[in-house]
C-alpha cells in the first residue's frame, strides 16, 4: 500500500482568538479525487492554504507528497498545482503566452515547454485560438485552460478552489472529464465545491463545519449513514448546526 500523499494530524490555524481550522485530521491517497466541502466561512480556504504552503499552521502536523508543511514548503510547491476560485490566467496575454509563462515559472525546460504546449492545445482543441488573447475565450474554456495549466508541470497533487463557479452544467461536466483524466494518470485531486452534484463525482468527501471536519467518507456511505437520498440532504443536515456563516 502506498503512503498517502496528503496526511494531516490535528492541523490547526488560529487568527488571534479565532480558530479558523480546528484539529483537522485526514489522509488522501494517490490518484484519489477528494472533495472538500463546507459552507462559506467553515474554514476550507484556510485549510487549503496551509496545505499549499501559503500559510503556516498554528499547530498540528501535515505532510504533502511526503514533505513537511512547516519546513519543506519549497519542495511542496514543486509538487503541487493550484487553481484558485478566481479565474487566474492573464487576460491580456494569448493562450500560448499564458501556457509558456506558467510553464516557465513552474520550471519546465524550453523543450518540455514546446512539446507540452502543443500537446495541451491539441488536447483542448484550441489550435485556431492559440494566438488569441485569453480575454476572448468563453468562461468555460478559460477554466479548462486554467486547470490544464495548473497540471502542466505534472504535479503529484492539484488543489482546485471552487473551480467551476459560474459555469453552465454542460461545461462543468466537461471540466470533470478533465479531472477524471488527470486522476487516471495518477494525479491526486483536492477540490472544494458548493455544487452537490460535483460532490457525487468525488471518491471521498469531507464536510467542514465551524472549522472542524464533521464527516468524511464516500458519497454513498455518507448518504447511507445519514439515511438520506442525496448529498444535498447530507450537507444540509450537517451545515444547519453551524454557528459561523457569512
Amino acid at each position, binding site marked *: 500500500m502506498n503512503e498517502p500523499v496528503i496526511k494531516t494530524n490535528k492541523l490547526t490555524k488560529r487568527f488571534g482568538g479565532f480558530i479558523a481550522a480546528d484539529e483537522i485530521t485526514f489522509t488522501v491517497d494517490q490518484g484519489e479525487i477528494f472533495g472538500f466541502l463546507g459552507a462559506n466561512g467553515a474554514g476550507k480556504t484556510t485549510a487549503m492554504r496551509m496545505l499549499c504552503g501559503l500559510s503556516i499552521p498554528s499547530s498540528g502536523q501535515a505532510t504533502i507528497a511526503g514533505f513537511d508543511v512547516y519546513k519543506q514548503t519549497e519542495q511542496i510547491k514543486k509538487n503541487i498545482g493550484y487553481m*484558485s476560485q478566481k479565474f487566474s490566467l492573464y487576460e491580456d*496575454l494569448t493562450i500560448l*503566452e499564458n501556457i509558456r*509563462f506558467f510553464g516557465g*515559472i513552474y*520550471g519546465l525546460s524550453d523543450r518540455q515547454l514546446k512539446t507540452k504546449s502543443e500537446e495541451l492545445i491539441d488536447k483542448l482543441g484550441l489550435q485556431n485560438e492559440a494566438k488569441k488573447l485569453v480575454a476572448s475565450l468563453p468562461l468555460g474554456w478559460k477554466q479548462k485552460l486554467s486547470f490544464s495549466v495548473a497540471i502542466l508541470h505534472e504535479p503529484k497533487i492539484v488543489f482546485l478552489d471552487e473551480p467551476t463557479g459560474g459555469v453552465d452544467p454542460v461545461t462543468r461536466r466537461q471540466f470533470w472529464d478533465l479531472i477524471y483524466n488527470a486522476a487516471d494518470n495518477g494525479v491526486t485531486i483536492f477540490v472544494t465545491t458548493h455544487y452537490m452534484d460535483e460532490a457525487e463525482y468525488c471518491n471521498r468527501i469531507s464536510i467542514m463545519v465551524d472549522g472542524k471536519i464533521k464527516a468524511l467518507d464516500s458519497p454513498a456511505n455518507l448518504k447511507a449513514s445519514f439515511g438520506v437520498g442525496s448529498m444535498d440532504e447530507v450537507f444540509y443536515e450537517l451545515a444547519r448546526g453551524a454557528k459561523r456563516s457569512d
Partner: protein
Amino acid sequence: MNWPAAQNEAIKHLAMKQFSIFIKKEFTHVLRDRKTLLILFGMPVVQILIFGFALTNEVKNARIAILDQANDPASHQLITKIAASKYFETEQAVMNRRQMEDAFKRGSIRLAVIFPANFNNELLHQHNAGIQVIADASDPNNATTLTSYVTAIIQDYLAALNKTGQTPYRISPEIRMLYNPQLKGASNFVPGVMALVLMLVCVMMTAVSIVKEKETGTMEILLVSSFKPLLVIASKAVPYLMLSLVNVASILLLSVFVLDLPVNGNVFLLFAESTLFIITCLTLGIFISVKTSSQQVAMLISLMGMLLPTILFSGFMFPIENMPVALQLISNIIPAKWYYIIVKAIMIKGSGFNAIWKETLILSGITVFLLIVSLKSFKIRLS
C-alpha cells in the same frame, strides 16, 4: 561529485530563468496596452509643453549674501536698509567671492549684493556709484522678483539722500542673472516635470500592476509556484525602472533640442540620481500595492496621496520659502522635493556631487525606509 553545490547551482539557474520569463511577461503587458503606453510616453511630452506657462509668485524671506568691499558709511546704511526688508534674510554679511559662488551652487543663497571698494567716495564725490546684484536665475521668476526688490530698496535710499543735496546722487546697479542669463522659464519646470512624470509612472503603474495580480488571482498561483515572492516584486520593478529611464532620456532630449535648455552638469550623475529617485518611487508603489487590494484604490491613493503632495510640496510650483513652517516641515518628507533640488543643481547650475550629497543622502534614507517597511508588510501578508 559535490551534489548539494550542483543542486544549488541548478536552483539559481532556474530562479534566473524564471526571473527573465517574468520580466518578459511584464513588458508584454505594458507594450500590449495602448492606454498604458500613451500615459507612459505621451504624458512627459504633453506636460513639458503644458508647463511652458510661467508662474509668477511673490517671494518672502529669501536668503541673500552681501559682499561689502567698501565697508564705509554709505554701504552700511544701505545694508541696514536691505537687512530690514521682510523680503530678505541676510545670510552672511561678509564673505569673499569664492564663498559666494559656493553658496550659490549649494543653493543656500538666492541673491548677492556686492559693494565696490570705494562706494562712499564715488557716491559722495562723483554722485554716481556702481553696485552689483547677482541672482540665481535657475528659478527665473524668483530671480526677477528678487532683483526688482533690491533695486526698489536702492531707489528708496537714494530718494532720502537726494532730499538734501542739489546735484542728485545716483547708484547704477549692475544686475547679473546667474546660470540662466536669458531667464528661460523652461529651466524651472523641466526638473519639475521630471519629478512629476517619474512619480506618476513608477508609483501608480507599479502599484496597479501588482494589485492587478492580486485582484485576478494570478498572484496566488505565483505564490503557490516555486517562484520566490521577492522575485515577483523585483520582476515588477525592473521593467518600470527601464521604461522610466527611457522617459528621463526623452524629457532631457526634449529639453535640449526643443526648449534649448542644455544639461550643464554631468549627464551620468543626473541619470544616477534619477535612478535613485525611480527606485524611491517604485518602493512607494510596492508599498501601496501591499497595503491595498483593488486597482481602483491603488490608483486613487497613488494619485491623491502621491501626485498632489508632489505638486504642492516639491517647490516646483509653489515656493517652499513662502509656506508656513508646518508645511515647510511636511515638504521634507516628500521625495520629489529632494529630487527637484538635485536635478536643478545638476542641470542648470552644473553642480557636482559635492553640492548635492546631502539631498542624495536624504533621498536614499527615504528609499531604504520605504523598502524595509514594504518588505515587512509583504512578509506578514504571506504568513
